[in-house]
């Protein structure tokens, strides 16, 4: 008989995977949130996993809450038992505050994960379908945890580093906890210094200015253009809409040398005006392509009706097409804003004068040994927060913008 087709085997597998995974994650979490030094030992966690995983398939209780309470307590006590009262490292005992919290958290979350993966599996032989469904659930859960962790960690480190001071960073790079009892002035020290000493308000305003101007110019150029490509008949129309796509495959890096040379000689290089010319040129093809798709979806009968009523084409664009395309225009505007705000290469190449730095350019100049890294991270937070805020606020628009226009990036 194939032992791997037994339900109990699946339960043990789930336990053997989930218990150490959560043990490592919680150990790391404990280290960075409290600064305590802990050595990792997986033995007790593995034993707990085997025991709890095995028991999960044996006995079923109907009520979910009761299952969770019983299972978690079981996990809790078996971990303490197997680790002889020292669930996280040999130094600390279970009744010490943070360790107690960590152990409880471990128990609930581990049992929850195991139980969800195991699902309705029983002790005995399992059909192929249910066995595969079990592994699919296991991988699904692990995948979700993995994805969330890889996205969270860099942002978490960015935020926490920005709130620390030089001394504690050097003393213990692992201690990413923040001392909430210290005064806000001390906590936000890096931010205060950025705005007072490095004049980040100007940088913020410069970035906002360039991005907004780019959005306006892009819309002014691309709305009529997209309308023409979508609705009007003219020779070379196919060719035109095809070449838009081609243009957006051309990278900035092969344009930068000629633009640098010519803009230097014209005196446009070290100026925000220069950026306000270059950025729209790189975003208009994308915007035009996105809007073209939307305009083609609008029924032509509306335009014809407008023409019959004696409207000119301009009036049709302004009174009929634009109001109907507001969602598309909003997503284009947000997408273009995001591109302009995040743009690095041209800002880096063009701007020399600290007064007209954009945020990207300013942050690069902070990346030196003289500037402490919590300032660099605080600056990164300052640059990131507006985009993430806009993104969360208008997520629906931006997501549709991303999918309709951008395989670029």
């Amino acid at each position, binding site marked *: 008989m194939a032992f791997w087709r037994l339900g109990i085997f699946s339960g043990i597998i789930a336990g053997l995977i989930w218990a150490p995974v959560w043990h490592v994650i919680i150990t790391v979490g404990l280290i960075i949130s409290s600064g305590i030094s802990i050595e990792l030992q997986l033995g007790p966690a593995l034993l707990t996993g085997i025991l709890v995983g095995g028991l999960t398939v044996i006995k079923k209780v109907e009520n979910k809450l009761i299952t969770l309470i019983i299972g978690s307590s079981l996990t809790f006590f078996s971990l303490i038992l197997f680790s002889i009262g020292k669930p996280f490292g040999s130094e600390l005992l279970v009744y010490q505050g943070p360790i107690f919290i960590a152990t409880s958290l471990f128990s609930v979350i581990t049992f929850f994960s195991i139980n969800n993966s195991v699902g309705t599996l029983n002790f005995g032989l399992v059909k192929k379908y249910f066995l595969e469904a079990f592994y699919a659930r296991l991988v699904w859960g692990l995948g*979700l945890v993995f994805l969330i962790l890889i996205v969270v960690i860099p942002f978490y480190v960015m935020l926490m580093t920005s709130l620390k001071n030089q001394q504690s960073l050097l003393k213990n790079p692992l201690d990413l906890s923040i001392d909430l009892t210290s005064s806000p002035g001390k906590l936000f020290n890096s931010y205060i210094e950025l705005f007072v000493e490095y004049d980040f308000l100007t940088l913020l305003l410069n970035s906002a200015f360039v991005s907004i101007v780019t959005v306006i110019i892009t819309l002014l150029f691309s709305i009529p253009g997209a309308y023409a490509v979508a609705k009007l008949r003219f020779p070379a129309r196919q060719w035109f809409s095809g070449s838009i796509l081609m243009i957006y*495959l051309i990278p900035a890096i*092969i344009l930068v040398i000629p633009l640098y040379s010519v803009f230097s000689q014209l005196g446009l290089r070290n100026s925000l005006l220069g950026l306000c010319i270059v950025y729209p040129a790189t975003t208009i093809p994308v915007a035009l392509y996105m809007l073209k798709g939307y305009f083609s979806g609008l029924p032509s009968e509306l335009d014809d009706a407008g023409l019959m009523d004696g409207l000119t084409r301009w009036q049709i664009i302004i009174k009929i097409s634009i109001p109907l395309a507001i969602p598309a225009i909003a997503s284009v505007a947000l997408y273009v804003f995001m591109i302009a705000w995040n743009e690095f290469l041209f800002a880096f190449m063009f701007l020399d004068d600290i007064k007209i730095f954009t945020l990207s350019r300013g942050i690069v100049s902070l990346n030196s040994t003289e500037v402490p890294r919590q300032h*660099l991270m605080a600056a990164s937070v300052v640059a990131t927060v507006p985009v993430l805020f806009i993104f969360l606020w208008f997520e629906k628009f931006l*997501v549709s913008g991303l999918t309709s226009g951008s*395989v670029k990036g």
Partner: protein
Amino acid sequence: MNAGTKKNITGALARRERRLAFGLLLPTFLLVLAIVLFPLFANFWISFKPISLADLRPPTIFVKERIKGKFNDLQEPIKIEYRFRNSSIKYALSDVVFKDDLPQGVEVVEIGKECNVSKLSGVETVVCELGNVAPKERGKIELKVLSSSSTQKESFTETRVISSFTAKNVLTSLDFTLENYSKVFSSSEFISVLKATIYYTFFGTAGALILGLFAAQIISKAFPGRAIVRGFLLFPYVAPVIAVAFSWVILFDPFSGSVNAMLIELGVSEKPINFFGKRAISFSFLGLQMSFPLALTMVIIFEVWRYFPLSFLFILARMQSIPSDLYEAAEMDGATPFQQFWYLSIPHIIGILAVLFLLRFIWTFNKFDDIFLLTGGNAGTRTFTVNVYEQAFAISNLGAGAAVAVVIFMFLLVFSILFIKFTPKDES
């Protein structure tokens, strides 16, 4: 109304429509012409020219005026000295002329042969024609004047010296060279750059696509908080590259980075690893000595991390458009989750996967910011795009940089042709 006039009317309408269309597209066309197509052409031009970063500062003539003499003695002539210098160390200036107005009431007594004095609307002006001035050449021209009682030293210097000249513009001159290309292709670096580019592009694209597919598979299942997680997974792509790149650099820093401290703390590694600075780790496997390109791998991992959200978004959108009754039917037939994925989901998303792979391949190939910010192109991570910057701005050889850019453009041309050829019609 006969057929002829009808045709004329529709013809006139069509003409008007055509004119309008061209009118609406003209601004876009002009801007793209100026900022994208012209530079593309100019890049070819520059790649054949011996031009360095310093040549961009246009050569000019500097003229300085000096006054020597006593102003209280009206008999003694005052000496005016014009010192001139060509600012360029490489290019000659021709037709160099400078002019300076003299104060009222002074009388020129001695003047060099290059200069003469002309009187224009009551003001006496010295005009000196220097002709050609060689690179780095400097010289002086003297002139003696008798001053009137009211003249002060300041009245000489307060009028500015105005100079004019014609200089060869390095950008528009007709000097050409093939040296840039021979430098790019013959250097031993070329092969290593090509290799790094291929690794980076292929593994970066494939990794992001696979992780994106994985993420889409996970999010396509309903669970509490799905909408939040979905938005959250897009953060790496939405955040400014500069912010996330620097937080990675700090996270993996060998001296004060959390990852290294954690690896040591947990006993995984004995001493800190310079993730973004170490070219390769050598190790032996089955008796074979092998090396693992560490920095390049880290850069690829960053690329995968940052761009998987994009693939994820596209694949998810495609997956959610698959009718759910297909899955219900498959469930009824007893298809396992893996079979459902393989025989149901994959055939539906294979088209978008192909398009995404090609487009992302091109864009990963074009990527500059990420590598530049993470490693600066050091430790075996120099791709073609970083090499453009390196040649043009770090070594200050604009011509060589442009030559690398031309190589990139050639690759892109090939990729786009492949792209057009292999794109399924319905997925574009």
